[in-house]
């Protein structure tokens, strides 16, 4: 019964009225043969092509050959002049062009359509054309693109401009040549064209701040008519103000404020939003923007109400006082028929209201919590999290509410948000810990999300053993072993072991339970149980500590590489785990926002991972035998931005060597550099060899390297190096990049100094249990010293600086300082080059600057000394 109901529901979802419901790839590709018929069978071809597009949009993928065959068959449809069919062909080209080969075959056909007389063809043909044209073919279509940008038909012009933005990605220089056409389009009569033209113009100028400033000051005084363009201009201006270190240019701010009086609502909102989001806005600056938003709150248009309340709720997060003026209007919105608006109104009130109103607001939330979507439920959860941190006394009520929400319906992201809010509260407030753990335990008794269950189990393993009655959690954990899927069972086994390792009284029971787990049907669960049982059964605290509480955190790819190398060489000596780099604990990512997009996008230049570097370096024969790569630093710029040559340095540390990698870019289009090298000099250090970069053409990055031997004396392993870029210049034709026939001349260019610091020898390491690790390491190599950090004005600053300086990882969340404290202890863990474990305890106290008592423990006296003396 239930089965058939489910089936019916499924059919309803995928079938029912969808004629493409049962389309299957193989047969559709067969049917695509109809494209080859002469004359073209328009009706059937239209139908089959639609099916192909449907499949691709459902996520079906084609192999290169399949896609190429379909593509070429499709090109024959250019014979037909049927309007619908041709537009489907354009779509087909765009869908297939990333997979199929030789797609440039349609170039001429598309240029013909884009310059032809049929307006319906022109815009989509442009869009398709820019997708199949790569950097090398760009010149062939340049003339047409320039014409299209200034075309009289707005659709055509917009299509060309939007295509420019795509072309920018691969061939920015080509689009730069079209700047005067784009300028012309900016004064078009069509609002959309103006908007697109401004977008392209900004993208062209983006990297040149001076040019952006000029463009903005021109536009803010003359002003485009298009409200869309003005919205974009507002975003550009806001970004300029944000980036301007010296203090905002008040003309820019005046522009934003004047836009609050524009006639288009869209512009007013955009300006208000920009002003309230500016980090630099003072409370006085905010006021006019807030009052505009306040007016929107009582607008009859739901979109305006929504936009306003959403923005206000964001402001309330950082500046609740600025929003209190709107409290009355917000109260009215609690009854709004649009539940999303009501939710945002309540969560805003939660942030701006007094402690006394919390209970009342919570009641109104629970009354409609079931009517709103998960996305907004998450907003509520976030508000509760903020509230809990702000009013610790309310935590009991909030925790209760959260527990109720945890039990109700909802998807994984929602449940995750609740769980992590509870975890935050637990971490913030030790008194709430046991209550919170109880809620979470109850939740995992009936939790369908594997990842979440595993995460909560992990937390139990960390926090549970340190509570007053660890025994009460064992039942919940063992239930998982009996009831859940393999991933959860495996996690539960690890948690049992953690309890066994830390609670003497539970050890014998845990051993019995682990014994039972050894009968599990799943390899992973059995393996874990056997491993933990064996370790715990020794009752040897050092062993238990090393292999259960703080197990080694190898970087797995490096471990694999090291093992492969070991097997190739002499295997008579035991494998040395010390040489294997440990994986640094993950760090939180920062997000950058693109003006044109609502959703945050990834940073453009991705810094390669440790693994990538290791792979790249071992591919260079001279570096193949340096052993495993221990650590790579973040890139350091050795030149100011916007200079002739740009060089950044990455320091790669091996056990006995340091490789300096110099990524160079030549920004002069009339020069070709050859034999590019960075010469470094520093006391006590030998440069063993240089690998120059043979040729560095304009704007194509290249790398050169220097290999240094690390001095024997551990106290001499830090230092400062002078660096000079040396190269041979050959003048060349800026247009083609062809160098003159003449031989070049030698030249050099002074770079900033390079520092090799302690942090370059230390890799961050995670410790689940710092105290246990500290005791384990013992006082044999302990060094202690007291410092006055007079330049620091706060504990936060001291914590960040010390952590960064030593290149170590803060443990037990000791990088977070509870508000209002004047003393704090920071725990840091790391691995020193050569695999030496180092732990640091820094007791910080605020007193006219910051005083720090630094205690270092390590398994090597030299290492302790380097670290202790590093701060001084």
């Amino acid at each position, binding site marked *: 019964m239930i089965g058939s109901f489910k089936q019916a529901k499924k059919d309803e979802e995928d079938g029912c009225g969808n004629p493409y419901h049962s389309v299957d790839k193989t047969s559709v590709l067969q049917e695509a043969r109809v494209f080859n018929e*002469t*004359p073209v069978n328009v009706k059937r071809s239209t139908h089959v092509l639609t099916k192909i597009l449907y499949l691709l949009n459902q996520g079906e993928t084609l192999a290169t050959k399949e896609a190429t065959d379909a593509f070429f068959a499709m*090109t024959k449809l250019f*014979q037909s002049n049927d309007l619908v069919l041709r537009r489907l062909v354009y779509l087909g080209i765009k869908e297939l062009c990333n997979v199929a080969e030789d797609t440039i*075959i*349609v*170039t*001429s056909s598309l240029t013909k359509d884009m310059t032809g007389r049929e307006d319906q063809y022109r815009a989509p043909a442009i869009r398709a054309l820019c997708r199949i044209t790569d950097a090398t073919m760009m010149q062939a279509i340049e003339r047409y693109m320039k014409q299209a940008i200034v075309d009289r038909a707005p659709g055509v012009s917009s299509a060309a401009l939007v295509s420019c933005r795509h072309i920018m990605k691969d061939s920015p220089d080509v689009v730069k040549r079209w700047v005067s056409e784009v300028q012309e389009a900016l004064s078009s009569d069509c609002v959309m064209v103006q908007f697109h033209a401004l977008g392209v113009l900004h993208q062209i100028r983006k990297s040149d701040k001076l040019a952006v400033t000029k463009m903005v000051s021109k536009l803010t005084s003359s002003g485009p008519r298009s409200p869309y363009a003005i919205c974009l201009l507002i975003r550009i201006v806001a970004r300029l103000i944000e980036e301007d270190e010296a203090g905002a240019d008040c003309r820019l701010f005046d522009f934003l404020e004047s836009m609050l009086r524009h006639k288009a609502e869209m512009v007013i909102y955009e300006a208000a939003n920009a002003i309230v989001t500016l980090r630099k806005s003072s409370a006085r600056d905010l006021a006019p923007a807030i009052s505009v938003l306040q007016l929107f709150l009582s607008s009859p248009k739901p979109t305006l109400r929504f936009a306003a309340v959403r923005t206000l709720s964001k402001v309330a997060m950082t500046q609740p006082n600025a929003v209190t003026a709107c409290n009355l209007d917000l109260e009215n919105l609690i009854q709004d028929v649009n539940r999303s608006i009501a939710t945002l109104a309540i969560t805003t009130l939660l942030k701006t209201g007094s402690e006394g109103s919390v209970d009342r607001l919570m009641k109104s939330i629970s009354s409609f919590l079931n009517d709103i979507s998960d996305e907004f439920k998450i907003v509520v959860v976030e508000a509760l999290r903020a509230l809990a941190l702000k009013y610790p006394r309310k935590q009991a009520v909030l925790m209760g509410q959260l527990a109720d929400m945890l039990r109700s319906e909802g998807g994984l992201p929602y449940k995750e948000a609740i769980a992590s809010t509870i975890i935050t509260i637990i971490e913030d407030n030790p008194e709430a810990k046991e209550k919170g753990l109880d809620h979470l335990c109850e939740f995992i008794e009936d939790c369908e999300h594997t990842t979440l269950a595993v995460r909560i189990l992990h937390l139990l393993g960390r926090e549970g053993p340190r509570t007053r009655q660890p025994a009460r959690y064992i039942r919940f954990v063992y239930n998982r072993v009996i009831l859940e899927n393999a991933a959860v069972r495996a996690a539960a086994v690890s948690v049992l072991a953690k309890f066994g390792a830390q609670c003497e009284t539970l050890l014998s029971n845990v051993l019995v339970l682990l014994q039972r787990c050894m009968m599990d049907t799943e390899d992973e669960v059995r393996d874990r149980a056997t491993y933990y049982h064996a370790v715990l059964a020794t009752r040897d605290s050092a062993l238990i500590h090393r292999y259960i509480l703080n197990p080694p955190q190898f970087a797995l790819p490096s471990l694999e590489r090291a093992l492969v190398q070991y097997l190739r060489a002499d295997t008579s000596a035991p494998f040395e785990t010390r040489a294997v780099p440990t994986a640094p604990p993950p760090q939180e990512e920062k997000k950058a926002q693109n003006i044109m997009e609502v959703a945050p996008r990834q940073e453009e230049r991705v810094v390669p991972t440790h693994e990538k570097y290791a792979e790249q370096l071992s591919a260079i024969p001279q570096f193949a035998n340096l052993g495993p790569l221990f650590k790579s630093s973040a890139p350091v710029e050795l030149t100011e931005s916007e200079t002739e040559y740009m060089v950044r340095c990455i320091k790669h540390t091996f056990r006995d060597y340091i490789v300096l990698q110099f990524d160079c870019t030549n920004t002069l289009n009339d020069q070709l550099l050859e034999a590019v090298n960075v010469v470094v000099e520093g006391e006590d250090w030998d440069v063993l060899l240089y690998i120059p970069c043979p040729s560095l053409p304009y704007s194509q990055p290249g790398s050169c390297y220097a290999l240094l031997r690390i001095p024997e004396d551990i106290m001499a392993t830090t230092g400062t190096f002078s660096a000079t870029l040396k190269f041979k210049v050959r003048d060349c034709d800026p247009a083609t990049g062809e160098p003159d026939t003449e031989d070049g001349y030698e030249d050099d260019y002074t770079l900033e100094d390079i520092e090799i610091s302690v942090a370059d020898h230390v890799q961050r390491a995670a410790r689940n249990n710092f105290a246990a690790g500290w005791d384990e390491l013992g006082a044999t190599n302990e060094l202690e010293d007291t410092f006055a950090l007079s330049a620091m004005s706060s504990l936060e600053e001291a914590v960040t600086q010390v952590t960064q300086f030593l290149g170590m990882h803060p443990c037990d969340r000791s990088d977070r300082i509870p508000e209002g404290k004047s003393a704090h202890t920071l725990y840091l863990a790391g691995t020193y080059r050569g695999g030496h474990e180092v732990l640091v305890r820094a007791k910080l106290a605020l007193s006219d600057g910051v005083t720090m008592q630094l205690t270092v423990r390590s398994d090597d006296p030299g290492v302790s000394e380097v670290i202790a003396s590093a701060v001084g």
Partner: protein
Amino acid sequence: MGMFDRLAFFLGLKKREASVLVIGLDNSGKSTMLNHFKTEDQKTTDIVPTVGFNVEKFKTKNVGFTAFDMSGQGRYRSLWEHYYHDCQGVIFVVDSSDKLRLVVAKDELDMLLQHAEIRHRRIPILFFANKMDMRDAVSSVKVSAALGLERISDKPWHITASNAITGEGLHEGVEWLTNQIKENFGNNMNR
């Protein structure tokens, strides 16, 4: 339908559609030639090297032609074969003033003739010894010899000197092709 078409229709001379492939080295004059057949208002004034292909349509007598004007540049020649399967005739254009590259043209022709899609078909091939107006142009007889046309025995072929700009020779050639294709239509009907 125009008046003549209507008449032809009633007389049972239904208009036929044929698709032909226009190939030959780059710069030989393929696009120029097809441009000549277009009606006055559809002609383009500037002809640029083709990238990939273009579809052009023109009519003669009662056959409507759909011509695939392929690009002749080296790196696109390998793409011609995608269009062999469904064409009913081939027009091979040679620049008769480009003596140096006649051997290249011959190579391409050989590859065409040996191609699996062409080898066993009795497909008519029309050769234009184009650019006959150029001072250093060689005669169609010499072009024919250079391409080794006499060895083609299993397909009807025809060569004519032409000037794609003025149109000289084009109609004669296309008339021959029309007749060949009509004959093939007839044969297919009888089968």
